[in-house]
Structure formats: C-alpha cells, structure tokens
C-alpha cells in the first residue's frame, strides 16, 4: 500500500475517531453535557489526535528512511567488482540500471515473476530470466548481468515487504493510540487544553517553515558549491577573468577543463544594475517627492495605483518588451545617429530594468519622505524658505538615510533580477565599459547552465550553485544593511 493510501486511511480513521470521541464523552456522563470539562467537540478531536498523530509520524519517518535503507541493502549485496567501491559514477550507473529493472518487474505477470524468482533462488538458470526480461521490454539494450537481476529482484521484494510492514505498523499505532485515547476519556479529562497544545505546536511548526526554507537554501546551495570547489580552485572562480565553461559531452573525462571566472559576470551584473538605478533613482525619487509634497489627494489617488501597476507586471513581460520592442528600437535609433548599439546591449536591459524598479524606489521613498515630521517643514517655511528649498535643504537631508536604504533595496532587486536579462542581455561574458555592447550576468548564467540535460557531477552544472550562492550572499548583505538603515532611521522620528 502506498504512503498516500495510508494517509487517506488515517484521514478516515480520524473522522471516525472524532465521532466515537463525542459519543463516548456523552455516554460517560449519561448525556449531561454540562458535567464535561470541555465541549464535546474537543473530546472528539482529542481521540482523533491520539488515533492519527503517532501513526502519522511513524509513516512520515518511514517514508523518509525507506529509500536510503533499501539503497544501502542493495548496495552492500552487490559483488565487489560491480559495486566499484571507489567509483561514485560507476556505482550510480549500476544503481540506475538496477532501478530501471526493478521498476519493470512488477509489470510482469504472476508466472513470469515466478521465473525471475526461481532464477534468483538458483532453481532455473539466470539466462532464462535475462531472455524473459528482454522479451518483455523491461530491459533495453545490453544484456543485464545476473547480479543486476538479482539485486533488482531483491529491491522489489524489499519494497514490497516495506510497504506491508508500514501499513501494518501504522494500523497498529493508530489502534493503540485510539485505545489509549478512548480509555482516557472521562468527564474530568481536560480535552480542550490538550487539543490546544497540539494546535499551538502546529502553529509553531508552521512558523519554522521560514527558517527551514532559509536553512534549506543555504545548505543545498552550499553543499553543491563545495562539491564544485573540489574540481575548480576557489581562487580561479572568484578572481578569474575568463568565463568559458566548455560543455563537454556526457561521460567524457576531462570535463573540468573549462574556465569559470566570476569577474566578467559580476561586472555585467553590476553594470546593468547601475544603469537600471541611474534610470530608476531620479525618476522614482522625483515622483515620490511630487506625490508626497505637491500632489493633492485626488491626483495621488489616481497616480499611485498606476505606478504600482508597473510593480505588478511580471518580469517576463518586461523581458519581452526589451527583447521585441525596446532593443530593436534602441538599435535603430543608434544607427540613425551613427552609434553602433547591440540589440542586447547593457542599455537595453538596464533601462527596462530601471522602469521595473521605479515603483520600488518611489513607494519606499514616498513612505520615508512622508515620515519626516511636519514640524521640520513648518520651521523651514517659517524662516521664509519656499517649498522646493524646504524639500531640498530640510526634508531630503532628513530622509537621506532612508532613501539610501530604499536605493539599496532596489539595487538588490536589480542584481537578482533574472527574466529581463535572460531575454534582453547578451550571453557572452564580456568585460567592457561600453554600454552599447552586450554583457552577461550571474542570473543569466545560472539559467543557461541549468536548462537542458543535467549531469549532476560536472562542474558545468555545479557552477550554477556557486553562482547562486554568490548572488544569495550579495543580495542578503544588501538587504540586511538596507533594512538596518531604514529601521534605524524610522526609530529616529518615532
């Protein structure tokens, strides 16, 4: 029985236990509900929890452990020459073949399966099993070695046993829990308190998902990055100026001969982000100033949602706009005035990305400017300053730390942005100062290294994780610093 069937069974058991619990607690006082400590539903939930929770934990732990344990059992049973003790790649290849045979075995008929069993136990020659498997299309290509068939047969049996075992154990646990809960139900039982403690534990569990996600990101990326640095020196990655990963055909030796220099990618990322900020910061900041200091409530109520539409448009749409409309437009305009602008130039990606982050800059700055106390403005007016003088000389300096924070947050968005640059920036790593040429970015390379067929042991794939880690660290540092500035500034006026 599969795990999902067990879960379904537990769900039904919970519903039944809930009803039994209610009936039982009513019966325990002879139908006088007022004598119960908690309301009847809590007794039902109490019994349902006792029935399901232990069995559920058991099932989940079992499901997580099953795969590695079976794998280990199969691995240890292999003959030494096949196991390739020192060769990870060979081992995973062998296990892959065993798996594919094991998946095919249950599709055989009863009598055919018997043949395999006999072969495994030595009653019939292995040859017969080999022929049968090939006839039925379980194995394509080369004839499998006898030990593969044996191991696959063992695997099927293990799986079969395991699934029966867990079904039985889960049922047993559910029954035991039910019986225990059932005997506990009496009028004095504090059912509500127990149920609420379980609910609270569930709430705490839910809030730790955020931590688990961060831990998951850090560990998964870190683990693969360490893997990567085993084949490529750390120094070459962080300080290399040449990016040339050289895809080699699968399985060929010497796949590590590519060069993985981070610098050109980092430069491209920063260059495009810089252009984006050069567009977004003036426009966003001036919009924010106008909206918070000059615009009337009516105009504000009309313009602010429109600006926020820009933030709500998916980045793929911006990428498309850059690719199909803006890039060619810029190239043609450049050609008209005699400039040679590549269609996927730094300017194209940068300007479109700038449009995307205008609303970030403007809405954050808007909040920060509005938070500057009115008394500062009034003091300035009182001295005879005009409105713009007040804004430039009083409001903006007061809001400056917050605005810097907002710009940093926008920069982190720009650095981590993917779809615009995937569609509109170049793919060739290029260390150039010319904004009319094309460069590539970290995110573009993560995407291009990870789409298509993956081979998880080659540095060509693993480098994506090293790039991802770099990206994560940069954006995290920017965010933490920006939030720190913004928060510190906010406290100043509160």
């Amino acid at each position, binding site marked *: 029985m599969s795990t999902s069937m067990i879960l379904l069974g537990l769900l039904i058991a919970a519903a039944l236990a809930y009803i039994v619990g209610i009936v039982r607690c009513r019966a325990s006082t002879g139908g006088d509900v007022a004598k119960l400590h908690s309301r009847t539903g809590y007794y039902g939930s109490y019994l349902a929890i006792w029935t399901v929770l232990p069995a559920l934990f058991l099932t989940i732990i079992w499901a997580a452990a099953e795969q590695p344990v079976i794998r280990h059992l199969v691995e240890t049973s292999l003959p030494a020459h096949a196991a390739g003790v020192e060769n990870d790649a060979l081992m995973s290849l062998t296990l892959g073949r065993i798996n594919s045979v094991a998946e095919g075995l249950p599709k055989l008929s009863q009598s055919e399966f018997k043949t395999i069993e006999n072969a495994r136990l030595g009653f019939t020659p292995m040859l017969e099993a080999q022929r049968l498997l090939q006839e039925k299309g379980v194995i394509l290509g080369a004839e499998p070695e006898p030990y593969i068939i044996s191991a696959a047969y063992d695997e099927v049996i293990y799986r079969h046993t395991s699934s029966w075992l867990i079904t039985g154990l889960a049922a047993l646990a559910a029954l035991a829990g039910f019986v225990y809960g059932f005997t506990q139900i009496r009028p004095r039982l504090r059912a*509500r308190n127990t149920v609420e403690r379980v609910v609270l534990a569930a*709430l705490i569990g839910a809030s730790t998902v955020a931590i688990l996600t961060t831990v*998951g990101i850090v560990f998964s990326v870190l683990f693969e990055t360490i893997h990567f640095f085993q084949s490529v020196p750390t120094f070459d990655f962080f300080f290399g100026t040449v990016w040339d990963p050289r895809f080699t055909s699968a399985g060929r030796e010497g796949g590590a001969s590519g060069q993985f220099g981070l610098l050109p990618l980092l430069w491209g990322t920063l260059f495009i982000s810089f252009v984006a900020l050069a567009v977004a910061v003036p426009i966003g*900041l001036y919009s924010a100033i106008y909206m918070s200091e000059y615009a009337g409530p009516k105009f504000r109520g009309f313009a602010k949602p429109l600006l926020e539409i820009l933030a709500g448009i998916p980045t793929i749409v911006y*990428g498309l706009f850059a690719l199909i409309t803006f890039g060619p437009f810029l190239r043609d305009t450049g050609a008209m005035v005699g400039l040679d602008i590549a269609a996927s130039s730094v300017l194209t990606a940068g300007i479109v990305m700038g*449009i995307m982050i205008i609303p970030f800059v403007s809405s954050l700055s808007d909040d920060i400017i509005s938070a500057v106390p009115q008394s500062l403005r009034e003091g300035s007016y009182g001295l005879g300053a005009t409105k713009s003088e007040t804004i430039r000389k009083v409001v903006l300096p007061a809001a400056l730390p917050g605005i810097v924070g907002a710009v940093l947050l926008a920069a982190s968005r720009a650095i981590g942005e993917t779809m615009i640059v995937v569609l509109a920036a170049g793919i060739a790593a290029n260390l150039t100062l010319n904004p009319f040429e094309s460069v590539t970015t970290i995110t573009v390379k993560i995407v291009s290294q*990870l789409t298509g067929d993956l081979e998880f042991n080659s540095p060509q794939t693993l480098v994506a994780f090293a790039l991802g880690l770099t990206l994560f660290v940069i954006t995290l540092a920017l965010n933490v610093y920006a939030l720190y500035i913004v928060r510190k500034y906010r406290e100043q006026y509160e």
Partner: protein
Amino acid sequence: MATTQDTLHAAADGRKLNDPAMLKRRYAAEWRFKAYGLGALGIALFFLVVLFYSIISQGWTAFLQTNIKLDVALNEADFQDADGQITEQSIRVADYTKMARDALQSTLGLESPTRPEKRDLRGLLSRGVDVQIRNKIESDRSVIGQTVPVWVLANGEVDALIKGSIDRNTPEERRQLNNKQLAWIDKLIAEGRLEKQFNTGLFTYGASSQPETAGLAVALIGSFFMMLIVALVAVPIGVAAAAYLEEFAPKNTFTDIIEVNINNLAAVPSIVFGLLGLAVFINFMGLPRSASLVGGLVLSLMTLPTVIIATRAAIRAVPPSIREAALGVGASKMQTLFHHVLPLALPGILTGTIIGLVQALGETAPLLMIGLVAFVVDYPTTPLDPATALPVQIYMWASSAERGFVERTMGATIVLLMFLFVMNAAAVYLRRKFERKW
C-alpha cells in the same frame, strides 16, 4: 541649487531677501523643481503606456486565426483497411493530408496539378489539418461517405499574409508565398472560404513547432495546478505562522530569528528558490522533473513571506477590544483566535492570498531551474505529469525564431496580464467590500 546660496550671499551683501529679482529667481527654481517632479511621474506613466501599447498592438492578432473552408470528400474507400473493414485503427491511419489537399484542389478548380503545384497547395494548409479532419470523423463516424464542409487551419505564412505582416509587394523570390499561391488565396477570399476567425486553438492546443497549432492549454493547466498547490500549501502554513507570531509568540531570540528570516526570504532573488527546488525536491527527494507539483512547492515557499506579512497586518488590524471581550467571557486564547480574530481578519487574509497568487502566477525564473521548460503536447492530468506554466510558455515562444511565434508570445502575454488583472481587481474589490473602520 544656487538659490539658497544666493540667499546667504544676499544676506551677507546686505541685500534684501525680498529683492524682486531674487524672488523671481527663487520662484523660478520652485517652479522648475515642481516641473521635474511632474516630469518624472509623466515619464514613469509614459513607460507604462508604451509597455501596454506595444504588447497589445502586437498581440491582439493572436486571438484571430486564418481558417479555410474545405469541402472534404470522405470516400469510404479511404478508410478501409486491407480487409475492407472500417475500424478505429484504419480511421486513425487514413491519409487526411491527401484528402485535404484534394479538397483544396477541387475547390480551386485544378484538374491535374503538377508536382510543384501540389507542393504549393500543401503550403496553404497547416500541418495540423489532418488532426482536425480526423477529430471530426472520430466524433461522428456517420459522415464517412459524404462530402462535408470543414474549417481547417491555414498555414502560418498565409495567416501572416492576411494579417499584413507579409508584404504582397516584395519580389516573388524573397516572399514566402509565390504569385500562384497569392492568386489562390485571393480566389478563396472572394468565395468566402478563407477568413479570420476567433482562435480557439490558442487555448486548446499544446506545444507545437508550428505557430498555428501551438497553444496555451498545457501551460494553463500547469499554472492552474501550481496555483492550487500554492493555495493548499502556502496559505495554511502562512496563516498559521502569522497567527502564531502575532498572537502567541513570546519576544525571544527564536521568534526574532523567525521574523528576520521572513523579511529576508521576501527579498531573496526568485532564482535562488529555483536552485533550492532543484537541489532539495528533485535531487534529494527524487520528485519528477518538469512536474507542476515541484513548481507548486517552489512557488509556495516563495509566496510564503507575502502571505505571512499580509496576514500579520490583517490580524494586527483587529482591535484588541475584540480579543479582550472574548477572553473576558471565558474563551481560551486559541478559541479567541479561531472564533473571533481570524474570521474578522479574513478579508485581509484573502487579499494577501490573492496578491501572493498573483506573484506566483507571474514568476518564471525558478520554474526554468526545475525543468518546466519542456515541450509538452499532451494535457497533464495530475500534478505529477510534465507540464509548463503560462510565463514559461511565453519565455519558450519568445525564444522561437519563427515570425508567427512573436504574435503568439504577445497574445499569451495578454492572456497572462488579463489573469493578473482579474485577480488584482478581485483583491481590490474584496478589500473595498469588507473594509472595516473600527
């Protein structure tokens, strides 16, 4: 910039601050500053208009597709197998392309076309024509033996000509359609047999290498599955986490860590979530690549902070007096939460959920990492089947070279934006309708 310095200089010179020339300069600066602000806002809104204009003007034609009406003669002989029987198998393998070409040939009144003419005829029809005719017969077998009118797809080039993206005046050798084909097309138009119709195929076809038979169906189903998973995973977890943090959490290091984590997760680049999905869900847990289940899980983790932050705001907006009243009549904290606070916060939670779903629906980058860039022809029936998502489909079409795909890409973008618009409108409507002032 100069004005304040001027003011100071003026003061130093002993000039009056209200010297008319000076005031004039200061007011001019004031006016300029205001104009900069308005100008910046104008530029931002101008970009918005240009963006929408360029997408809609290039994309709306994707909702129309050129079709040709053929009178297809379905002779029984064409459907019989070697034994003279008409079976499901023999219907499946019949030569529909030839029937379509013959029908087109007789419509155009060609007696015995030469070999190049035959090729030109075929060039007018889409390669998906055989499937269209076959579907017609499989849905109703009684038409065999009759001549039935069928609207079939015209070739992508014909479609491009009708929509005006191929210029009739380009010299024949550089035009995708030759003069003979143009004459045929004109004849078909004159007979009312060739016209643009609403493009249902855009919503019912899966992946295809021909633009005219490429559709969004697989992507729509995939996106639907993913939204479902996000709603089932991110929303309960997010609401539970927010409830804990707002109503129960003591102020200690553990809850501080959670808060910092949530804020940081909200700012982690989405592509990093894709790496997480690849390493954990696919590599470690062994879930299938290209499945919408993995996509949904990754998007759930990504939207979780949005849902948590929105729910916390909604819970915080419920006034403390409600809680105190509930506690005062003897409710436990848990009862207060589930019976009073959460129901009152529901509109806000719903709005936050929709905003999270909007974010998830438009997200592309993490899905590229976990293999949702796949050429999927068959409709996925479960979240474990290979699928794509709407924005990923846009990305894949954007990378296709053929002209017809540009239009499809923009059309798909319009579809995506429509979905987002409707969801956002729903969020605004909910907020307006249930907004409460305490």
